């Protein structure tokens, strides 16, 4: 029985590829049970990889090295620009180089707990196992990780972890890891195993006889749409945080590839799980186009506070110690400023809602380095965070050595994504999904330095090993360009393009996107309520109708047309936004990045409801009312407990 009128219940869904047996043997067992493809047959098999971020470039390069024929697509002008490039902090690995008690099992345990018991144990254990190989691989590629004077790799503790397992390259870890993958990819381009198509955007998935067989892409320079056929399709197209308009994502990040696949039958899992990062630079005005993240590592030395009294407009330096509320240290004495992201974000919202926020609109809290500078000296602070302080000053015009930073939470990562089994295959045979685009490893909340780990784990080590079990049945029958399914996919793309170009509207795409983002942030952001979500669904539907009536897209379809690109993406965000609200509404518990005001303890902490909600919500597209398929989660190794950081 569905819990509300917005959806209907379907049959449960199961991960049929997950091996049984002791958890530490499952990955090895699956690699053995999965079928292989003879090296001489690999060159007869074509695989499409969409996306060139960590999960896409690593998969495309590795599949090329194995001898498959790979076609790799990205909408950017170069594969090196994918948004993985912007990750700052680091990448976790259970190397235990510090001898501080880390192990594969501990990383597994921390990740399951950090995900608030909403991820699959088998997947997370595999991730922890593979983590050590990733570091080896990246070092072999020449990734310049931070090192100590002895020449060995440096590690730091990150995001509240009690062990130092995070490898990093100054504040540019994502950049360096992505360049490693990009260089491996370009090597395969030169070797002729990978064909690269930049400035191409996937606009439709082609499904023939129940199998994913190709994509429709638009050449963003000429506007030409073509159909590309292959034996399997891999989506590595990232997350959907830009549904909020303002987020830390790059401007081009979008859900279109995933959403088109969803409309073709792929289940979308846990869309309401979004991660709000606590340390971003607050919005400065209506012109704001994105939000900039300040690395979480700043909380290692910065102290978070707001004035004790509401409406205190004095400059921070004029507020005496006794009139400051270091609210994280007060509420969470054990973890203090290092509580997990969701908790730090919600606490910031709470003090701002009380009217104690600072800066424009009262939407900010202070992150103060005065104590750290007094204790360590300005030079030491500069050595640790200099580039971040410079970036802050460039954006705000304020000097954080003299005046505390102002920070506010912003949407940063989306844990939800297309549903996949243990092999990273969606419920459409032949459609695989890697990295942030799938839902699989982070549960309801991702730990710091785990996104890079997952992207590379999927792309270098998991997918190349699991996809062979599917490809062993190939090559599949040739699909003619005039095949019914191909023609239909291409026609739907062309119709959409024509619609936007011919619509007699008067409002820009961005104006709708901003308005959608405001609805999502207000009602499906850090705190969600039954009433608010119902209201949001109505608002989104009304705005979507207005969008189709009034949106104005200038130019033609036969040229570089950035407004046209945006229009298609925003159209898909409308549908996704509605599904996110429906998912958030049905999940009447608080867990990880999903906080339902009705489900909290007396002192305002999240209350999970394992009795009713220990499952993955996998949604099937069915027009207005989606169908819910539940995948039950079982915990054999890490027993669910309420998280406590007091």
């Amino acid at each position, binding site marked *: 029985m569905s819990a509300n009128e917005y959806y209907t219940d379907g049959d449960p869904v199961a991960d049929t590829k997950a091996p049984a047996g002791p958890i530490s043997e499952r990955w090895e067992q699956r690699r053995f049970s999965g079928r292989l493809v003879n090296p001489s047959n690999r060159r007869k098999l074509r695989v499409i990889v969409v996306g060139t971020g960590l999960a896409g470039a690593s998969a495309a390069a590795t599949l090329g090295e194995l001898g498959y024929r790979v076609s790799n697509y990205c909408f950017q002008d170069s594969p090196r620009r994918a948004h993985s490039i*912007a990750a700052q902090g680091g990448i976790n690995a259970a190397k235990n180089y510090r001898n501080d008690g880390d192990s594969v099992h501990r990383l597994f345990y921390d990740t399951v707990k950090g995900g608030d018991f909403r991820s699959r144990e088998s997947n997370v254990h595999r991730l922890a196992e593979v983590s050590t190989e990733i570091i080896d691989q990246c070092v*072999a590629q020449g990734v310049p990780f931070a090192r*100590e004077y002895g020449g060995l790799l440096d590690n730091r503790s990150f995001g509240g972890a009690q062990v130092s397992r995070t490898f990093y390259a100054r504040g540019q870890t994502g*950049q360096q890891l992505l360049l490693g993958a*990009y260089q*491996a990819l*370009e090597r395969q381009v030169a070797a002729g195993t990978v064909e690269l198509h930049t400035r191409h955007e996937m606009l439709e998935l082609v499904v023939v006889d129940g199998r994913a067989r190709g994509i429709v892409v638009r050449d963003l320079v000429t506007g030409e749409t073509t159909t590309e056929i292959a034996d399997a399709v891999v989506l590595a197209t990232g997350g959907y945080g830009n549904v909020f308009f303002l987020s830390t994502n*790059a401007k081009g990040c979008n859900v279109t590839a995933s959403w088109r696949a969803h409309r073709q039958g792929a289940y979308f899992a846990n869309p309401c799980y979004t991660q709000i990062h606590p340390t971003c630079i607050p919005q400065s005005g209506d012109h704001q*186009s994105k939000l900039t993240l300040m690395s979480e590592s700043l909380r290692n030395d910065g102290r978070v506070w707001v004035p004790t009294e509401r409406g205190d407009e004095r400059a921070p330096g004029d507020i005496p110690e006794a009139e400051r509320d270091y609210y994280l240290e007060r509420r969470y004495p054990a973890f203090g400023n290092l509580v997990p992201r969701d908790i730090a974000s919600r606490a910031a919202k709470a003090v701002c809602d009380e009217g104690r926020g600072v800066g424009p609109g009262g939407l900010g809290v202070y992150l103060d380095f005065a104590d750290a500078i007094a204790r360590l000296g300005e030079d030491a602070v500069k050595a640790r965070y200099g580039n971040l302080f410079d970036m802050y000053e460039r954006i705000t015009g304020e000097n954080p050595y003299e005046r505390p930073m102002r920070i506010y939470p912003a949407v940063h990562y989306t844990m939800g994504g297309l549903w996949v089994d243990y092999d990273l295959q969606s419920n459409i045979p032949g459609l695989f999904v890697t990295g942030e685009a799938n839902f699989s490893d982070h549960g309801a909340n991702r730990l710091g330095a785990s996104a890079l780990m997952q992207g590379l784990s999927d792309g270098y*080590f998991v997918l190349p090993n699991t996809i062979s079990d599917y490809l062993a049945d190939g090559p599949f029958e040739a699909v003619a360009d005039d095949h019914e399914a191909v023609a239909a996919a291409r026609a739907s793309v062309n119709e959409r393009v024509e619609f936007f170009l011919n619509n007699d509207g008067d409002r820009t795409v961005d104006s709708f996107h901003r308005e959608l983002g405001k609805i999502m942030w207000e009602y499906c952001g850090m705190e969600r309520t039954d009433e608010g979500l119902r209201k949001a669904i109505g608002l989104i539907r009304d705005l979507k109708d207005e969008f189709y009536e009034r949106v104005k897209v200038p130019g033609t379809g036969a040229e570089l047309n950035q407004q046209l690109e945006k229009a298609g993406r925003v159209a898909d965000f409308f549908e996704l936004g509605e599904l996110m609200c429906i998912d958030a509404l049905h999940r009447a518990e608080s867990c990880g990045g999903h906080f339902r005001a009705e489900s909290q303890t007396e002192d305002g902490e999240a209350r999970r409801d394992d009795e009713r909600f220990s499952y993955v919500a996998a949604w099937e597209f069915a027009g207005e009312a989606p169908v819910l398929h539940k995948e039950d989660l079982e915990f054999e190794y890490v027993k669910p407990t309420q998280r406590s950081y007091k």
Partner: protein
Amino acid sequence: MKLKLRIWRQPNPEAKGKMVSYVLDDVSEDASFLEMLDVLNEQLIADGEDPVAFDHDCREGICGACSLVIDGQPHGPQAATTTCQLHMRKFRDGDIIDIEPWRAGAFPVVKDLVVDRTAFDRIIAAGGYISAPTGTAPDAHAAPIPKQDADAAFSAAACIGCGACVAACPNGSGMLFMAAKVTHLGLMPQCQPERATRVLGMVAEHDAAGFGGCTNTGECASACPKEIGLDVIGRLNRDFRKAAARAA
């Protein structure tokens, strides 16, 4: 603040471009340079005109997509700052600002301020990598690297591939970009086996792509938003001479 913008408009690669003037009446000094262009585009669309095409993505100075020549300087007047991180408080009310695309033979204009930089990808494909197929790696601690080498490699690896160096160079040379990669990889012990073939391959591709030669003007390094220094070019030249002599 009120601004007059003069922007390069060119509908396609074949068309002849020209500078077109626009006036913006109310620009916030807290806006970034690209947000200022967003405001202009919203205005142009409302007026039924074609918005200005420009490349951008992360808007936090790391993806390397943004690529504007502002008042004659790639990425504009602020040192060590990409266009997307440049903010309007660096300009004054009443300023006239010229905005042009990267101009270089190897970077043809696609539309307006958007250029084709795929030549950089081809240079990387010609040797800017280490051959380490997935699964072949030894333990990460197998080869310690002195901290100063690792730090120097990192500084060179900080290149974001934006192409400002090429746009700034009177010869349209891609030497700084190429030398940054050669330096990054050349400092790593695991990169030595391919050191000679790498530099020969990359230089050949660089020249074939239509980039000019280096005459040590140093404009590239002063335009580089990541402050990559001219010393990397010295390193590239040494590696190249050695490799070429051995190959001869």
